């Protein structure tokens, strides 16, 4: 994660996306405690104020909640958790579609390529591990 | 005040190795002077007595006896005093410049201490003054020791006269300066010494504040106050005025207090407002 941040996008937005990805793939589960802002800053090598801002935003989106004097936890609200997965897929596809549209590929051909690429590269990645 | 004393202690510690070396050197060299010169004289004397078939008394009548002034006048005796004096004068500069130059700029730390910078300044002045007094005190302590060794070595017949510590000091111009016989003499010598040190400190601070331009400013300042100080002496020399010794002393005393005060004030302003690390 360390230096994978894009320097032109707000870091706190990237941190939130990172959390959402972790939730979507099940690395972080409902009700799990999350690190303190200091710990997060240290792990990700980012400014503590930025970590703070990411948490504040996540709190507002209902992604995490904090009870007085306890560490913050990931929400247990199934509705929100499900929407995260959808949101990520939607956002990724949207940016993909935006890039591909100018090339004007017929939809069937596009889907075929996507399918091949997705399956093949998925396997490659697995064997590389 | 507490931090001032800590700073003085700190400054003394930094010079400790060289200081101890100077003391040991003085002690060894002066005792060597006593031993070697006395032994040399006696060897010469006995040889001559043997050759010329003289008695000890007739030898003394012919060639002269020996006394402690022969020791105090020697290079082995005066050399370490001059060396110590030179080292301390050199250290007046080094005590400042060592904090700026070299790999470690300790001046940063010193000037960022949560204490008045006047204490930083005074601690350096105090350290040097204490080291001067320390060396003089040690000289005063080892003189009787050296005199005792000397009188124990030399047979009475060859001894011109036994000397007291007072007369030893009085017989030697250099010793007379560093150990004046009277309290007022002490005040004059060390007062002037302090004043000169403060003026040298001011030149250094001018230089540390304005660099090359500062050297010129410092030298002009030193020249100006020196001119003021010697004005009454010159005036008397050219017979413009005539002052009784007591009056002259008074005038010079007042002038030196004014000059030292002004120098301290200028230095305070430089070290607080103008100095650059």
């Amino acid at each position: 994660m360390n230096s994978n941040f894009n320097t032109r996008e707000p870091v706190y937005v990237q941190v939130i996306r990172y959390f959402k990805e972790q939730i979507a793939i099940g690395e972080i589960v409902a009700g799990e405690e999350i690190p303190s802002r200091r710990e997060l800053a240290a792990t990700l090598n980012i400014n503590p104020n930025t970590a703070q801002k990411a948490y504040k935003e996540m709190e507002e989106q209902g992604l995490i909640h904090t009870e007085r004097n306890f560490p913050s936890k990931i929400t247990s609200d199934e509705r929100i958790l499900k929407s995260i997965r959808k949101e990520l897929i939607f956002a990724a596809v949207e940016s993909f579609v935006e890039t591909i549209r100018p090339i004007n590929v017929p939809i069937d051909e596009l889907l075929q390529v996507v399918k091949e690429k997705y399956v093949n590269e998925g396997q490659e990645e697995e064997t590389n591990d | 005040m507490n931090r001032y004393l800590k700073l003085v202690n700190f400054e003394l510690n930094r010079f400790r190795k060289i200081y101890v070396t100077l003391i040991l050197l003085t002690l060894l060299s002066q005792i060597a002077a006593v031993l070697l010169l006395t032994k040399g004289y006696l060897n010469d004397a006995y040889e001559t007595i043997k050759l010329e078939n003289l008695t000890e008394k007739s030898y003394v009548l012919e060639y002269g006896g020996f006394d402690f002034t022969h020791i105090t006048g020697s290079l082995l005796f005066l050399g370490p005093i001059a060396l110590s004096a030179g080292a301390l004068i050199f250290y007046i500069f080094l005590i400042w410049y060592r904090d700026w130059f070299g790999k470690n700029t300790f001046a940063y730390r010193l000037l960022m201490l949560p204490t008045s910078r006047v204490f930083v300044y005074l601690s350096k002045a105090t350290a040097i003054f204490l080291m001067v007094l320390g060396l003089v005190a040690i000289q005063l302590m080892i003189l009787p020791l050296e005199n005792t060794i000397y009188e124990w070595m030399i047979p009475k017949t060859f001894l011109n006269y036994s000397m007291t510590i007072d007369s030893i000091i009085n017989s030697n111009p250099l010793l007379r300066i560093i150990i004046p016989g009277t309290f007022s003499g002490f005040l004059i010598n060390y007062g002037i010494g302090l004043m000169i040190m403060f003026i040298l400190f001011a030149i250094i601070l001018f230089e540390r504040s304005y660099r090359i331009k500062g050297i010129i400013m410092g030298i002009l300042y030193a020249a100006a106050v020196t001119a003021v100080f010697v004005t009454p002496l010159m005036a008397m020399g050219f017979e413009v005025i005539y002052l009784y010794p007591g009056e002259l002393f008074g005038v010079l005393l007042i002038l030196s207090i004014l000059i030292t005060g002004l120098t301290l004030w200028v230095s305070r302003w430089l070290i607080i407002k103008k100095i650059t690390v």
Partner: protein
Amino acid sequence: MIEVKQISKKFGRKKILDGVSFTANKGEITCLIGINGVGKTTTLKAIMGLTPYSGDILIDNEKLTKHTYEKITFIPDAAIMLPQMTIKQAMEFMNDFYTVWNQDRADQMLEFFKLKLETRISELSKGNVAKVNLLMGLALDVDYILMDEPFSGIDMFSREQIADVFTSHLIEDRGVLITTHEISDIEHLIDKVVILDNGKVLKEFHTEDMRENEGKNVIDVMREVYRA
């Protein structure tokens, strides 16, 4: 807050600082950026009263006095303790003179940096000099810390260790003002940037705001202002 207001300074005829103004807040890491020789270090020295200047500098609304040195500290990029001192003696010196010296934190940092008490200052590598300097500065319970090029000229591992300090509790909620001529390594660590060139402030901004509102990183902004 450190407020630098219209400060100027000349070396001979050359204007090193020409009406420099900016602020550095408590709880934030502010970074003075500019190529070498644009007056970054001089600005830090001016704030610390280590060089004369014209203009005003206020630290929490007050001018610098001897008491300010227990509130703000400066970490230069060279060793500032005596070469013959051991780290232990250097720590004792600090403890002797500063009422805000925090021995617990000093010990923590010693551990954090894996430094040894008996090592002499003269024996330290460039990277370890930086660490010892950081230790001496951060172990003071001060509100503001100024650092001159904390990342320059030292090995990669020391650099990472020092970067770790910036995200750790060792900085707490203090105000940090650092200078650098190389921003890319630390872009995510800092809150605010002040771009200095030819003795003038070209731009002052918060990095996250710049990313959020204009989608630009620090280098983009630097290119922009240098061209203008």
